[in-house]
């Protein structure tokens, strides 16, 4: 098992299947939230479903709408299981806080190059040192 420690995290411990891309994330810009898929043509995950997946992406992108949208997606059970990002902006943190979504960020490596799509990973924000572990 490989473990990666993170600078910061919030939300409950989760375990699930990773969906990975060296690309950014914005709920407004990138998603068709009604269908639960990436919809921006330029996005590396365009057409892929994010429902129930642990999204492993590079940076938080775009504007402020994600802060509301994560909450709205959660109310319809249309959230990813967790968000893993190399770098966050305040909007992701604010949105994850309102939605109760697991969020982890800040690794010593580029996490999108160390986790492959389809891998089963565990994230524990409640640990003394938050971590992502490939199972």
């Amino acid at each position: 098992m490989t473990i990666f420690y993170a600078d910061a995290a919030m939300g409950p411990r989760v375990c699930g299947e990773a969906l990975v891309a060296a690309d950014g994330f914005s709920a407004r810009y990138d998603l068709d939230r009604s269908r639960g898929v990436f919809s921006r043509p330029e996005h590396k995950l365009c057409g892929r479903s994010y429902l129930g997946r642990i999204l492993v992406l590079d940076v938080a992108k775009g504007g402020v709408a994600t802060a509301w949208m994560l909450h709205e997606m959660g109310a319809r059970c249309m959230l990813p299981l967790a968000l893993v990002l190399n770098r966050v902006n305040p909007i992701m943190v604010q949105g994850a806080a309102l939605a109760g979504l697991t969020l982890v960020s800040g690794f010593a490596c580029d996490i999108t190059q160390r986790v492959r799509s389809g891998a089963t990973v565990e994230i524990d924000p409640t640990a003394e040192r938050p971590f992502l572990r490939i199972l």
Partner: protein
Amino acid sequence: MTALSDAMKLSEEEKAMLAGAAGPARQWAIAHQLQVGRYFGARDLVPVAQAHIMADTESLGEAGIAWLEGWAALPQMQRRVRVPTMSDPRGTDFAAAARLKHAPWMIERERRAAAALAALGVLMTDTCITYQTIMPPVFGEHVAYGDTGVVIYCNSVLGARSNFEGGPSALAAALTGRTPRYGYHLDKCRRPSLRIELQWTPRDLNEWGALGGVVGRLAGDYWAVPLIVGVDRAPGSDELKHFGAAAASYGSLALFHIDGVTPETPRLGDAGRLPAHAVGEAEIRAFQRGYGGDGADVVVFAAPQLSLVEMHSLAGLLDGRRARIPLLAITSPQVKPDADRMGLSRRIEEAGGTVLSGMCFYNSYAREMAEANGWHRLATNSAKLVNIIGGYGYRPILLSMAECVDLACGK
């Protein structure tokens, strides 16, 4: 006290809020702020002079509207915001909703959200150009703004201090009168981290937007602060508006410095050793070519809302012409009465355009508007809008305002 308060230094008043002494809305608000502040290592909360809240109903959804209505139902003493709080554009123009083919359920949601926000004491300004129309912040003022274009303009051009505050956090700041002290509230985060050596100064608004897109892509994320050197003149407010909005959109940037123009540049010290990127006309043209196309179903001027000067320019370009496809000019509720009084709205609408206010385009059920109106190819002079609207199923085309008018009217 909980672990939340242990992580940050709180005043007695803040501890009382966290304990619920000021009611459940303020208790939620400060708990939310502590959760966010702890993530970023904030040591305390800083008082803010203003807040600005984004809360269109496409983003809120039914869940968000109901959540706001829950707070709005509290007794007045418990629900009213503590600092002047302005609203970002709504998801429709109530006076023109039928022309946009907004469905009744969309309008009803907007009315409910607006009523809830008003009950909380939010000033329903419905604008993303507060700094051009309402009350610009002053240098060094701490604020909690919730529109990326507003944040980057006020941080960079005016020297105010704000992070991106999404709707929930902007509301939290409005309710408590403070925000976690991290990021762009701190001197250490406002120093430049990369240098853009500009070799060609844009002339048109869409070129400034394209430059913002190039710089945003180069900078890469929220914590990057570009220093731009080499501009051959001081850009105007609308030029910096388009530049900043695009930089925030493509790079999630919240602050830039322009040597000789923005107020914090003289304090920057030695920036010569920063990573440097040369940007010239070739890079800007290449960016524009990425959003090419030779036809459009709709032309949209928005994102950000048009200033009075932009409305004047558009009216002049449309004089004596007739748009053959829908042409939407979207401005703020503050600019619209002046545009009406000066005859600008009439001139735009006599040419077949539609003047809208209090909304934007991408946050107004853009996907549903596309389906209802048969819009697929969208031309605009907003680099920000072309970045967003592709995800809603549109094919975006980036042109100058004059080229957009030519496309709408035929040459």
